């Protein structure tokens, strides 16, 4: 059995470690490239949202590399994601691939269910080994994210931005290859130490809050690496969702870290009173949260036609007016080009910068 799974940001590092812990053969899909997009777009329904198309491209490339089992998450709506696995299976079978699909139908379940499902996946694994496998994946993910947060901090501040990116990219590879928790943490610390020795620009950069749909937020290929684009414009990005937080809230039931979800729901209440599936409520909650934290601007991103994000998009202008923070929405589909994206980001950041000069005398004009 050779297992594969879809990409989502740095998730592959954790999943690889976890499946290896379950003594399974893993064939991760190759990194997302133009070919992944092309394969996905060619074979997906035209109006499906972009994550499905990238998923499908991942699967086709992994099956070409010899995978024969696909692990995919499920769900019970109302967001389309819950039906992804079914449509993807039909499409892949229609293309003539032979494979087995395992759908983990438990996005809001308890840790015990997850362990059981994973245990069922690994054939000769004890419960203890299953727990250990989950822990090993979790540790690597935490290590990657600690570097990522520092990366978001140093990229706008450093003079030598290429260097920051290089350190980060190398750290991710090192953590991926690390054999133990200690090695992973050592790789993370080394990268953070290196970043802290860089020459920094004086003054405080602009702070931009990035909110939106989780896949688009976490997968650089789906958002055309928007974090780096903004970082290179000397603005600090804070993402609303990190993978560890999401896993903690939805898979581990808030057991490992303190959940902030309740606070978000309260933040969103004056604007959106009901959950709308996907990350609609989180988007609204985080936008209010960022506004209250005195962020200079908020950018919402999502795949085109994403239903929960459209609800959030309709509500964001009233947040923008009441909390006095500029908000911009960017939709991503397979036709987005980076030039247009860069221009819009530059204009937004210029505008935010000017507004800040208008209200705050301490910031000098660039």
């Amino acid at each position: 059995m050779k297992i594969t799974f879809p990409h989502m940001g740095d998730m592959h590092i954790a999943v690889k470690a976890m499946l290896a812990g379950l003594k399974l053969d893993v064939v991760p899909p190759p990194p997302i490239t133009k070919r992944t997009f092309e394969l996905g777009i060619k074979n997906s329904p035209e109006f499906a949202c972009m994550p499905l198309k990238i998923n499908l491209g991942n699967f086709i490339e992994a099956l070409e590399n010899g995978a024969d089992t696909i692990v995919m998450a499920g769900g019970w709506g109302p967001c389309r994601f819950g039906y992804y696995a079914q449509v993807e299976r039909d499409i892949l079978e229609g293309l003539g691939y032979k494979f087995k699909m395992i759908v983990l139908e438990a996005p809001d379940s308890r840790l015990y269910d997850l362990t059981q499902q994973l245990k069922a996946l690994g054939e000769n694994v004890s419960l203890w080994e299953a727990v250990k496998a989950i822990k090993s994946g979790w540790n690597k993910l935490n290590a990657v994210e600690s570097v990522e947060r520092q990366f978001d901090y140093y990229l706008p501040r450093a003079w030598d931005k290429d260097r920051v990116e290089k350190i980060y990219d190398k750290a991710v590879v090192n953590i991926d290859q690390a054999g133990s928790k200690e090695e992973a943490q050592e790789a993370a610390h080394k990268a953070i130490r290196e970043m802290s020795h860089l020459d920094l620009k004086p003054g405080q950069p602009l702070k931009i809050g990035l909110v939106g749909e989780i896949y688009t937020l976490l997968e650089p290929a789906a958002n055309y690496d928007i974090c780096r684009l903004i970082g290179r414009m000397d603005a600090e990005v804070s993402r609303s969702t990190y993978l560890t937080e999401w896993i903690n809230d939805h898979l581990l039931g808030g057991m490992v870290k303190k959940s902030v979800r309740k606070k978000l729901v309260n933040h969103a209440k004056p604007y959106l009173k009901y959950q709308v599936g996907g990350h609609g409520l989180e988007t609204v909650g985080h936008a209010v949260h960022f506004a209250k934290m005195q962020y200079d601007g908020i950018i919402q991103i999502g795949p085109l036609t994403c239903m929960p994000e459209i609800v959030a998009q309709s509500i964001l202008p009233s947040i923008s007016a009441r909390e006095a923070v500029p908000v911009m929405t960017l939709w991503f589909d397979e036709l987005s080009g980076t030039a247009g994206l860069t221009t819009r980001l530059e204009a937004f950041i210029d505008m935010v910068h000017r507004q800040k000069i208008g209200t705050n005398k301490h910031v000098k004009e660039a």
Partner: protein
Amino acid sequence: MKVGIPRGLFYYYYYPLWKTFFQELGAEVVTSAWTNRQTVEKGVEAAVDEACFPIKVYFGHVRELCCEPLDYIFIPRLVSVEPRSYICPKFMGLPDMIKASLPELPAIIDITVDISKTDRLLKRDIIRVGEIFTHNKHLIKQAYQHGLFQLYKCRALCQDEYNMAEALRMWEGEEIALPANYNLNLGVLGHGYSLYDQMISMNLINRLRQMGCRVKVVENLDQDSVEAKAAEIPKRVFWTLGRKSVGSALLLESQPEIDGIIYLACFGCGPDSMVGEIISRKLKTKPFMMITIDEHTGEAGMVTRLEAFCDMLQRRKAVVSENYISAYG
């Protein structure tokens, strides 16, 4: 007291219930006009660009009602109208979307309909809404029961080939005659609020009738058989309307007199993008056409496609009687 009900979205499924409920509680019920060009223009202006066409049209209806002296406007939050199923995320945030986009609104009556797990909250919300008009809880419950009865009565009208929009007009006393002659049998599927709205669907059903087709919609089919067919696919579709579409498509395929199936989808509709794909993959023996519409669609293009589809069916019918031709080459 005057209560306004926008003539969009779930108006087509629940209007008799809402109207009877408010009237029995002593309110005067006002609706916006049937969707027209102005509704569309007003809606497109107010809603975000990425919203789907029916949502934009709904914005137009609400804006039209805003021009009238109303005490309340009824914008329900429909989360789930049956256990373990949803409508669509946009319905779940509809009152909030409207409030954020249209500043000058009459007071909104927003009732949350969520019976995905339990109907306890719905019952409480019905009382809460009723108490705006009267403190007699018995009267409120009675009004709701009468509403349900009227809804049942209206839906019973759909047993012939009438669609929900026609049933609503007949329920209010109009008489509608259907053409008696036809030479093709078609199944037409889609979300009722776009399919039965003559402006959104560009009069799709009547156009087909004029071309000599007898049109069957979801509501004309036996609902138990639809559910049974929908249960055949591996994972239950968790959108109420989507599941009915899938079930109807499979049921229609099993009916020998049906010549072809048309699915009307709205651009940007999330459930449609998945459901349409499932249907087109499951249908093996009957021709299937998916039409996607938005506010820009020119009528001529759609008419051409309908004519071509019908022509193709006619020819196929003539040949099939001699030897079988697969619907997919």
